[in-house]
């Protein structure tokens, strides 16, 4: 019954990916900068296979990227897959802003009218 906008599967997955608390912890840690997997394991207090599993999900949806540095795998954050949600909220915000711009015009007139009626202290 309700109209839903179609969207790319990868985008949906990115939203699902951040819905999981452990994965958000990982993203939080990576928001502070690039980190090796050992560092994430220590921070989260989880077993390495656990962390690797979450990192794999995050990589699949493009929220984290990885590179090799010597024997280390370095992980870093990429917020781009979450941009659609940001844009949707911004669209909604724009429609309210348009409405309120019109309200500004009405308010300005009411203020002038009130001043003109001698109700002002000036």
């Amino acid at each position: 019954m309700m109209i839903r906008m179609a969207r790319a599967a990868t985008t949906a997955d990115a939203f699902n990916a951040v819905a999981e608390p452990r994965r958000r912890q990982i993203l939080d840690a990576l928001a502070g900068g690039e980190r090796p997997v050992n560092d994430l394991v220590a921070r989260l207090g989880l077993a390495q296979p656990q962390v690797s599993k979450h990192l794999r999900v995050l990589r699949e949806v493009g929220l984290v990227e990885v590179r090799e540095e010597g024997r280390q795998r370095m992980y870093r954050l990429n917020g781009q897959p979450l941009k659609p949600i940001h844009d949707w909220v911004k669209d909604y915000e724009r429609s309210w802003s348009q409405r309120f711009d019109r309200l500004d015009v009405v308010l300005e007139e009411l203020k002038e009218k009130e001043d003109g009626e001698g109700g002002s202290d000036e």
Partner: protein
Amino acid sequence: MAVTSSGTAVVTLPADDQIFIKRKFAAPKHIVYKALTTPELVKRWWSSDYGEMTVADIDLKVGGKWRYVMVTKDSREVAFHGEYREIVPNERVVSTEAYEGVPDADANAAVNTVTLTEADGVTTMTVLVQCPSKDVRDVIINSGMEVGMQKAYDYLEKVAVSLI
């Protein structure tokens, strides 16, 4: 330039089933209240650029009904109605809002709480839209997120820097 705009509307999603809108206006709150609750004035701003308002019925009392109808540029009629639940003149209006374009409009109605606070002649208006469910909220926002939208939104704050 006669009109002073005090900024743009800021929209946030405080919970899965809520939308929060905030905006400052360069006018005292009794004037903002008047513009929000007087049919002839509502007709001038509420429909924004989407169309002309043909109906703005406001029975401003607790239990009183309101109904707004707008005709869009492509001649579609879009109608909303609701009931006032709480009224504090110049400060606060709580009302339901049902979109007549869906089945069970009243069962899917949102509850809107509008507050006005004034400081130095500037009024801050907030609108909290409490939806009956996350699904309804998502339809209003027009996003269609099934899972994790709220978390994603919260998370955006942290990753905003990498979105640019």
